[in-house]
């Protein structure tokens, strides 16, 4: 996500940000930035703000964990491999079509 300041950072100075009030809008602000948070693309002050929220909001903490798990599973999903025969057959097919054109 972008690095521009959002309402998450604006709330930094509010005393309520240190206590979890479970404001739905704050959770939605967090949700919008979670991929950037997971990918470590956010400025450190916003990261701190998100970490503070996660520590106080079990719902968002579980949410970010499940999103992190999703990314981890995608990264580790093995892909099928071609056989030597498949490689050779496809090469022939490609060259046949190319030479026919």
């Amino acid at each position, binding site marked *: 996500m972008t690095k521009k300041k959002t309402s998450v950072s604006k709330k930094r100075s509010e005393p309520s940000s240190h206590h979890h009030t479970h404001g739905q809008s704050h959770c939605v602000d967090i949700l919008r930035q979670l991929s950037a948070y997971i990918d470590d693309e956010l400025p450190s002050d916003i990261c701190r703000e998100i970490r503070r929220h996660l520590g106080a909001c079990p719902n968002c903490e579980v949410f970010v964990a499940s999103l992190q798990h*999703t990314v981890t599973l995608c990264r580790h999903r093995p892909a099928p491999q071609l056989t030597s025969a498949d490689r050779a057959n496809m*090469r022939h097919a490609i*060259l046949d079509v190319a030479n026919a054109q």
Partner: protein
Amino acid sequence: MRTPAPKKTSEHPAMQEPDEFDRLYRDHVDLIYRYAHRLCGEAESAKDLVQETFLNAYKGLKDFRGEAQVSTWLYTIASRACMRMRRKRKGQPEHELSLDEFVPTSEGEFRLQIPMDGLSPEEALQNKELRQALDQAIEKLPRKYRMALVLRDMEGLSAKEVGTIMGLNERAVKSRLHRARLFVRRELSARGITHHDDHKSGDLRS
């Protein structure tokens, strides 16, 4: 990884560059098949996409100047070919994913979990139910979101590289990626997959 710029002549490329094409094919067919399989979700369509990709690469080889990495060039050709492919199977219609649709509306929805407690990703993926749910979730993604997720999270490319391949700026790539991840997360966690030990089920690729 760079292909030397071939000489330009009016001859058919097959007459001058068979070795070059063979080298290109040999070095990259596995990479492009892996990408194609992740995009298509099954072997036959993936092979069709590989052939289409290398046929187009063959035709374009004489103009390829090595300004981009060969792999980036091939990913780009494959991605364009994929967008042109007819949808062979029924599935989720192509549509835009809105962030709003991923905002949980209940506490239960917030707290849905993916069963990975204490397991490495490799161990978690031994669970066939989880593996299939992951594949189905990716397959249900509208194509342009699936492409961003596959290139970034499965092929491991940077957002900049994905942008080059998909013709998008980085911000648009990250936006698509975020929505794609939220979609897959919701599909996975909503399935209520139970954690059971089938570590000995063997074939991870089924």
